[in-house]
Structures are given as structure tokens and as C-alpha cells.
């Protein structure tokens, strides 16, 4: 399978993601400069975490207007797989490839921690190796992860199984205390209607080796491989 990892100026999880796909998944992977548009030969594009363009404007806004993101829109239209992690998720909402928006954390501070997540839909290209209701432990690290979407859209997304991950406690309860950033209904990850575009605030690439404390990110990365095979 051929992965491409987008590199925007200011991306800083690009090399981590690249390394995990190359060294842990042992799959073909390349870094793609934000000025390029020739991406049809990839099977999956990953928009990595970081601070694209410094996040000096609203996070993800500037990156959503680059040539590469334009090409990713066409790529997604063709039904190919796109996954945005953290800043990548912010870029995908800014590019309107995913509904909703990511606002500053409700407490106004950056938060870095290991976080429990509940899998809400295991029938997607990104979660088919999970079971519905499974609890994953994956790190988060963000300042703007407070997901918001209007009630109508939210209802449609819920009916259509687009809410993929929610923040929960270690037993899978969706509680206010388990919500690290104020996200509506504890939402941590969502997909588009067709389920080929997925955005999530947690970092699966930081949870792919046991020595780092958790391998649960591999459930997501291996789902992509499974879907493609």
C-alpha cells in the first residue's frame, strides 16, 4: 500500500508519521510537499499533526488553501482514503472535507496526555480492526481540539455513523471529566458521509510501539491496510 504524508510548513508530526509507517507498518511511504498536486498514485494521504503555517491564523486555515490540499479534495472525491491527525483534522474541517470546526480548548490551555477513546463505529476503513465500544488509549496534544458542529448536522452525522471516536474514561464512560477539551458530545474523531475521510485529534502514530506506553494507534493504522487489501 502506498501512503503519502503531507508536509506543510510548520507540520511537526510529519516525520513521526512517516517513520511509523515505514518502520512499524513496513509499508511504502513518501513525504509530499505542500506545493505539489500529483498525488493520484497514493492509496492513502495522511495530514499530520503540528502547527501548519504556525497556526497563527485559525489552525489549519492557511494549509487548507494550499495546492496540495486542493489536490487532496479531488483525491477524496474519488473515494480514496484521507486521514487527518490533530492539525490534519483541523485542516480537513477548514477545507470542508469534514463537517464542524475545532475551537480552542474550553480551559484555554494546551493539553498533552494519554487519553481513553471509545470506538463508536467499527465499520469504517479506519476502525475495521476494532470492535464497537472498544476502548483505545492514544495520546492527545493540542490547543484547539474542542470539536463543534450544529445540532442538525450532528444528528445527521450520528444517524449516518460518522462519529467514529469519543473521549471516555478507562471504563468507556462518556463523561464530562473524561472530556479533555470541551468537544461537543465528547467527540474525538469524525468521518465524512462516505467514510473515506477521517479526522481525529488523538495521535495514532504516538501509540504504535509498546515502548511508548501504548500500541492502540495500530488498530487504526492496520484498519487502513485491511481495508485496502
Amino acid at each position, binding site marked *: 500500500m502506498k501512503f503519502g504524508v503531507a508536509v506543510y510548513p510548520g507540520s511537526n508530526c510529519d*516525520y513521526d508519521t512517516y*517513520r511509523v509507517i515505514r518502520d512499524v507498518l513496513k509499508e511504502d511511504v513518501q513525504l509530499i510537499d505542500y506545493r505539489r498536486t500529483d498525488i493520484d498514485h497514493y492509496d492513502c494521504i495522511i495530514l499530520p499533526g503540528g502547527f501548519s503555517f504556525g497556526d497563527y491564523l485559525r489552525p489549519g486555515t492557511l494549509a487548507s488553501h494550499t495546492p496540495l490540499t486542493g489536490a487532496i479534495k479531488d483525491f477524496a472525491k474519488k473515494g480514496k482514503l484521507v486521514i487527518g491527525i490533530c492539525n490534519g483534522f483541523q485542516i480537513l474541517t477548514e477545507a470542508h472535507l469534514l463537517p464542524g470546526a475545532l475551537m480552542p480548548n474550553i480551559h484555554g490551555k*494546551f493539553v498533552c496526555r494519554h487519553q481513553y477513546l471509545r470506538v463508536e463505529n467499527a465499520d469504517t476503513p479506519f476502525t475495521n480492526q476494532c470492535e464497537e465500544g472498544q476502548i483505545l488509549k492514544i495520546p492527545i496534544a493540542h490547543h484547539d481540539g474542542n470539536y463543534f458542529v450544529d445540532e442538525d448536522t450532528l444528528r445527521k452525522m450520528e444517524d449516518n455513523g460518522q462519529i467514529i471516536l469519543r473521549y471516555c474514561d478507562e471504563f468507556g464512560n462518556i463523561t464530562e471529566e473524561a472530556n479533555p477539551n470541551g468537544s461537543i458530545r465528547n467527540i474525538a474523531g469524525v468521518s465524512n458521509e462516505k467514510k473515506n475521510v477521517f479526522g481525529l485529534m488523538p495521535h495514532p502514530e504516538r501509540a504504535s510501539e509498546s515502548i511508548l506506553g501504548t500500541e492502540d494507534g495500530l488498530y487504526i493504522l492496520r484498519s487502513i491496510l485491511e481495508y485496502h487489501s
Partner: protein
Amino acid sequence: MDEKILSAHGLTLEEYKRIVQLIGREPNEVELGIFGALWSEHCSYKSSKPFLKVFPTEAPWVLQGPGENAGVVEIDDKYAVAFKIESHNHPSYIEPFHGAATGVGGIIRDILSMGARPVCAFDSLRFGDPRNDGKRNSIKDAKPIVHGVVEGIGFYGNCIGVPTVGGEVVFDEVYAGNPLVNAFCLGILKKDRIFRARATKVGQKMVMVGSATGRDGIHGATMASAEFSEESESKRPNVQIGDPFFGKRLVECTLEVMEKGLIVGCQDFGAAGFAGSTSEFGAKSKMGVRVYLENVPLREEGMTPYEILLSESQERMLYAVDEENVEEVLKIAKSYGLEAAVIGETTDTNRMEVFYKGEKVADLPISAIVDDAPVYNRPRKEPEYLQKTRSFEQSTLPEVNIKEAIRKVISSPTIASKEWVYRQYDHEVGINTVVKPGSDAAVIRIKWAVKPEINSEKAVAVSSDGNGRWVYLDPYEGGKRVVVEAVRNVYITGAKPLAITDCLNWGNPENPEIMWQFEQATKGMADACRQLNTPVISGNVSLYNETVLPDKRINIYPTPTVVAVGVLDRPEDAIPSFYQEEGDFVVIIGETDKQPIVNGSEYLKEVHGTVSGSIPPVNIEMEKKMMAFIHENRKMIKSAHDVSDGGLITAILEPAFAEEKTFGLDLQIETYHRPDFELFDEMRSIVVISVSKSDLPFLEAKAKEKALGFKAIGQVTKEPELHLKIGNYEIADSMEELKSLWKNSLKNIL
């Protein structure tokens, strides 16, 4: 020469005369500016230099000692690490957010200029006690400074993608008007690709890359070399503004031109800006430099040569480039959206010649600027306060309720968990952080995939320490103890300590008592380094950490921040700080039979409200025994945490407070001493380990063989309750409540 003009440049009349003598004429305004910046305490180390010579700086594994942008030690046959710590104290009081942010940016570029990929940062912070906010006169509240500094560090580190993996936060009133912000960075590199701040040939081009130059931070170095007064507010324009997005692109650009072999030397623009970087470059290359200021990309119109030379605008680097590679370097820099320009070249004149639009605005021998700065042998005198503090007798202390005292000490802001701080730092970016913040030392893998590819099986353990109170009470012994403490935190992970870097934060060197502290502490530190075979490979001195109030002067405690770095053969083998399993035995090793002393302890300060007592000599032979014992038996030692701030009881309790689990403890400590002395002493070399029951006899026999104190004092239990028998006292408490005090106290105060 008008003394006012001289004083604006931080120069004395004597120093001015020396300049005239060195260059054989009166300097012009631009030249005076160059001297003012380069001869500042911050750049020239004129008060501290003679004392820094006592530090050992060499070992077979040291590839680069002090004198470059950072020191370098080898990790295995292919790879090395570069590291250094630096202060950003003065800017952080005036403008906490940007002061701290630029401190992080500056140290990252120091590491970068050695050719290393920066992979982790530490921050050692000292603030006033936030519980005293609202009660001070003429000094700002501590809380907003804490918030600003922590946010500033997060802003820069998180954005540039260098994980902040550890540090310290200490609260004491002496730092209220002069907080300490010491930033450390470590980078990884190939042993055979170390870059240095030098050109290799005459005629090589000097290329400036990064941010455009503005008027920010002019005279930052001079400011950092003066004490604080109420006028400091007016120095806000001297503080630089950090831009981590530029910083990140500068990191990638620099590593790319290095990887492609396009540059021969590299230097960042730090204190004294353009004047500092170009002249130091010339001095280290043993060449002259000719620079053209009109080529410098500017952010503001109408900047004078003086301003361009002395601006401390951030995110700028200087490369030495062979002429044939210049075009390619400029192209790469521009592809990262960076400003880039050829601003000069090396010459064979040994002079710094500065041109602006065809006019020569400065022409100075480089040696005069860099090497001939005055060195002061400042008067030194043993401080008077020591007579009083030394006469302290702990037997005069009233007895206290031990249970209450434990609660008080573990909830003091200095001892309590720093989770509120490190949650705001991305400590995992880079996917190398094996042991995360909250432990004695951080453990970092040495791996990277892109620019450059690095793949070592080893890991480094890093820890910082700097108990100013100990050094205040006995500079020599305290200095020694600070080194020992940092090194101990590294070896209790099972790592082999390699070297240290230090940041010496001191008061006003013109005060003989302060200078005496400096001389004594550096001697103590040097002796400890020598005995532990951990040379000093880089560092920085910050003087004039003094607050001038209308009625008095407050000097900080003499505070050396030491960061120790050690190597682990396999990151998997790192010994955790936390207990692992119920039923395991809690064992103390080391000076287990020594008489306890609470002098200078957190207990004395928090519970009895006094900072006093003499500091007994540290037993370095015992440290070496413990180091060997832990290293040899690392597979059997399930957790290790050393006794330091907060004493034995803190060292026993903290390992039970892991993130996701709270253990109980059933302990019996036999002692003839007062229980408070036994529990809160910080002066004995003791490490608290936990081991499984089956390994206990073997380890005990091993320790006996080596004449190492070894006492099993109880067991880890499942129910989160504390049962402690000590001498004739018995204490029962809820571990959940103790954990909550420890975990939430700082958050609640802030």
C-alpha cells in the same frame, strides 16, 4: 567621553580607556556599541571566567567541550548527542511569555548549529511563592509570571516540535523579583558530522538565513548584565519576540543544507546579535570578517548600522559557505520561505570590518572585541549570614504532628506534582519519549527518520537539578550536592552518567559575598564532577540576578542549575520511578545508618519557617557504590526514586502516586532518632527501590558484599492506605487523600 553614554552601553570609564588603548584611537558610536555588547558580562564572562577554569571538561567520550554553541558526547560508535543549558531570566520577568519563549528558541538554535537534530527540551524554573501574591511591595505577583512563562515555553516548544520532557519548578520568595528561566536542549547527530562556528578558508561567504532583522532586543545582552530595578519596565523593548514557525523552518533548512554538505560552519544569532555572531565566527576561525550591512534583510525601514549590528531579532543563523554553493543555499532557504542573503566574507586581516552602503562604519581587531575583554578578579568575602545559619541546631526544633507535617510538605508548591505545568507541554512529539515527565529523569530514544536518519539502539537519560537553598547555606558543599543530585537522578534509571551542562544563576558579582559564593560553589561542583567523572561540556553564567528596591537589595539564592545526561544500553531497561506491583518490598539503600539532618530542608522551611543549618559533606564514594549496584542489578530493581527535596517520606510516597494507580504502603522504619528528622532529612545519600520478594535475599547479600546500606522497610500494598511505624510512632493515612494533595496543590494555588 560622557559617562552617561558609556553607562548606556554598560561600560565603565576604565573599560573605555582599555578600548582606546587596544585600538589606538577613540571608538566611533557603532564601535562603542559593539564593545558594549561583546564586553557585557553576558557575552564576555568577565567576572566568572577565572572560576570556570576549575571545571573538568574532558573524558574519552567528550567530542566537544565548552567554547562552542553546545557540548557533544558520543553515545555509541556512530552517534552523539549535543546539549546545553542557558538562562533567560531577565527577559522573563519583564515579559514572561516572550522572555521564556525566546529562551527556548535560542537554546534550540544553539543545538542546531552543532549539526544536531534537536529532540528534547527541559526547563528549569524558579519563581516567587504564589502564596505570597498580593503581599509584596514593588514586586510583581508570581502567578501571572508562572502562567506567562509556562505558556511561553509551550507556545515555542509545542509549535517548533521539540518535546519538553522535563525540568523543575521551584518556588521561593528570593526569586519573586527575579525569576529564573533556564532552558536546556539536547540534539542527536552523527559523530562524524559535527558542525562548529567557524569558516575553514579565507574568502568563504557568510550567509545569513532566517527572519528579517528588526529593532527588537537591541541591547539585550547589556540588559541581561544589570540588576533589576523599577526602571526595568522601560526595558520591555529590549525583550525579543519569538516566532516558532520561523524557528521550525530554520531548523529544517539548516539541517537540509548540512545534510547536503553545502555549508562548512554554522552559528546562531544570539546575544549581541550580528556583532556577536560575526565577530565570534571570525575569532573561532582565526580570520577576519568583512560584512556589508546593506545586504541584511530588514523588517523595519530606516534602521541605522548601529541598530542592525546590535538587534537581537530571533530566528536567524549564520552559515559559512564556499562560493560555489552559495546559490544552492540561498535557493533552499527561500524554498522554506526564509530570508537569506550573503552578508560578508572571511578575510585574512583578523579584523572586523563593517561596511554600510560603501562607507566603513567600524574597523576593529577581532581579538580586541572577543579575546581582550577585561577579566575581573573581583573581591570575595565569606558572607556574614553564614555565621548565623551555621549555628542552627536542629535539636531546638519543637516537636510537631508528623501526619500533618507530611501533608504539609507534600503539598508545598515545590514538592507537589508539576502536572499542571507539563500537561501544557507537548512531551511526546518526535516519538522518542520513553520515560515521560513526572519521573526523576526523562528517557529519550536516539532515533530520527529524516534529516538526518539516526538509528541507535541506545537511549539517553536526562535530569536537571539546582537546589539554591543548599548552595546558599554552604556554597561548596551545596554546589557539590547539586551535581550529585542531577547525576544520581540519571544513574537511578540504570543509565551510565556521561557529562553535565550547567547554568550558574547568581546575584550581583560586585558584592564580595556573592562572588565568594560563586568561587566556592564552582569549586564544589568541579570536585563532584571530577569524582563522578562527569565533565562539564557546556553552560552559561547569569549574574546580576538581584532586585533593587527603594529600601533594600534582594539577591537570589546562588542557584546552579545542573543537567546531567547519561546513556542507557536499551531504553526498555530504564528503571521506572513508580512502584510496579503489590507485595513488592520497599528497600532503602545507601547511607541508611547515618544520623538524619533536616538542615536546609523543605520541611524546615515549610513547617518551621526557616532556612538554616550547615550542609554536611556529601559521600561521593557511597554514590559510586549505589551507581554500580543499581547498574549491575537493574533487571531486578523494579523502581527507584532518590531522597532529595522533601526527604525520605516524599521519596517513599511519590512512587505510589502513578498516573493510573495508587498503591498503599505498609512500612516499619526502625530508628532511635526523632521521626521528623528521619522522615524529612535531605542530606543522606539514599535511594528508595522496590524489588520482588524472591530477589530480596540476593540483592541484600550483594549490597552487604559492597558495604552498601540496605534495609527493607516494608511492602507495597493493594489498598491505598498508608501504615507507617517509625520508632515509637504510628501513622495511618489515606493514600488517595495524600495523592490528591500532592497532585492538586500546585494546580489549586495557581
